[in-house]
């Protein structure tokens, strides 16, 4: 097996699923499923996929982002607080299902 090498491919190119969804009305989860072990290793080890980098993309402090690495299923999960409790006035996404955009053009 060869070491993963840096590439210019975006996460959208490398992943089979990138999705966001509420975990209850106060939290947002972002799930990234890579294609295979090599893609997972590249993404999981990339500074561009760190909690700090993802926090910066979503404009929130790094302490507010949790990350779960699930090597067995080539998945990386992030948990973020919602800016507005789901469905309160000013919310633009009650289900939190369209908040994955900032992940798509990450280059791991």
């Amino acid at each position: 097996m060869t070491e993963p090498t840096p590439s210019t491919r975006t996460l959208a190119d490398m992943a089979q699923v990138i999705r966001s969804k509420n975990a209850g009305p106060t939290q947002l989860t972002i799930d990234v499923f890579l294609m295979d072990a090599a893609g997972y290793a590249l993404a999981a080890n990339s500074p561009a996929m760190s909690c700090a980098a993802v926090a910066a993309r979503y404009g929130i402090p790094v302490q507010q982002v949790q990350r779960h690495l699930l090597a067995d299923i080539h998945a990386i999960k992030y948990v973020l607080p919602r800016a507005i409790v789901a469905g309160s006035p000013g919310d633009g996404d009650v289900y939190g299902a369209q908040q994955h955009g900032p992940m798509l053009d990450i280059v791991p």
Partner: protein
Amino acid sequence: MAMFTARSSTGPCWTSCHEPPGSSQGESRSAQNGVAPVNATARLLQSHRPGDEPLRVLSASGQLGYGIPEDAFRRGMAHAPHVIGCDMGSIDPGPYYLGAGVMAAPESMVERDLELVLCAAREADVPLIIGSAGTAGAGVHLDATLAIVQRIVARRGLRLRLATIRSDIPAAQVVSALHAGALDAIGAIDQPSPDAIEACSHIVGQCGTETFERALALDPDVVIAGRACDTAIFATLPAMLGYPLGLCLHMAKIIECTSLCCRPGGRDAMLAELTLAHFTLASMNPDAHATPASVAAHALYEQADPLQVEEPGGSLMLHDAWYEALDAHRTRVGGARFLPRERPSLKVEGASWLGERVVLLAGVADPVLLRVLPQAIAEVEQRVRTLVAGDWQLFAHVYGQGAVRELAPALQATHEAGLVLEFIAPQAALARTAAGVFKQNLLHHAYPGRIATGGNLAFAFTPSEIDAQSAYRFVLYHVMRDAPLDMLFPVAATDLDGRSHH
């Protein structure tokens, strides 16, 4: 933490049930002391021995009321399930349904789905368990669901013993927990004031297996619960039969969304075959395959922690869970453990009324206006406030310019954008007035650099300001520690006989 003992449900009624077995009007089919139980739950509890054959649990619906796919459900029934479960609700659709006390799903489709599962369960004479009745699971949702059930029972001439679980939590109980320091926010939601808790129109708790066990002890054919943990719907009867609670809850956690755990995911019925060591998952849609990867991935869905799921009486630990393919269509799962907690905790949800909502819908396609749109809206708001007095609020959603999530200026649309202007006021008439006056003032607002003087808005139809029901917000999405689980959820049973109406 309730104790699960195999085949124990024929004992006397639990102290907190409102209506003991046998007390109902009409001809009782319920268990009596010294008489063999005749209803579906007790029959299953007495006849099924773990180890003899797998327990077949059919999940018919993850969101009852949106059209259960009938062919997959019928295929599931052909497997002779021992128990059928349906999830009927969620907090996902937002605070309106809990706050206003209405169902999210269209009532006629709820009736169609309920009729499908009720008739099938009675024909097969197996327990049917439904949780989170009427979307949000407050008493008003449960009652609306029960009214539909009674219509179906009468129309189809069904006879059944029905157990119900009420999930409303008194505000005073939550206020006490707040004062005792036993109310913890889940995620980013403010700690409410006692007044804010009292102002909730409905507060519900997510009852767990402990509560379903009390309802099942009433020997029902059908259980319909208010707000419930999705897992408890499917896990309680297996646990009462003696299957390990960790396995039962893990199975429940996966099948409560029916075939969503498959590839491709879908809404078709899902069958689990449970043994003492593992369970096997199969979609009843032959083209939706449960693979180890698709099933394991499902643990991430809508879940903050993919390896630990919190239940009222403890935690489901998935750290040692394993998934193996049985064939191309089915996956076998094992290894989950249940870690009881000493002091039970309960998820509570509450919503309160904010005002009446009117929305104004319009499009903008002028490049000059699109560059100054937020400013134009702010200026018009100022003017309208001088014309329409009162406590109305405006929330502007500018689609194309960051309504869904913040957009960098370079990405904001300059060719066309959609406006959803949301007006909330204590009275609908005031919200309507603000929206109407705002529409006309924005239509003819003289923003800097304007060259299109015919009108600033494109309406797809008129009236373009539309009553949009009441506005609510979640006040509670909290954990109540040390909740007295056996006191909070009244269970009751009644015998329904649709044949007496014919």
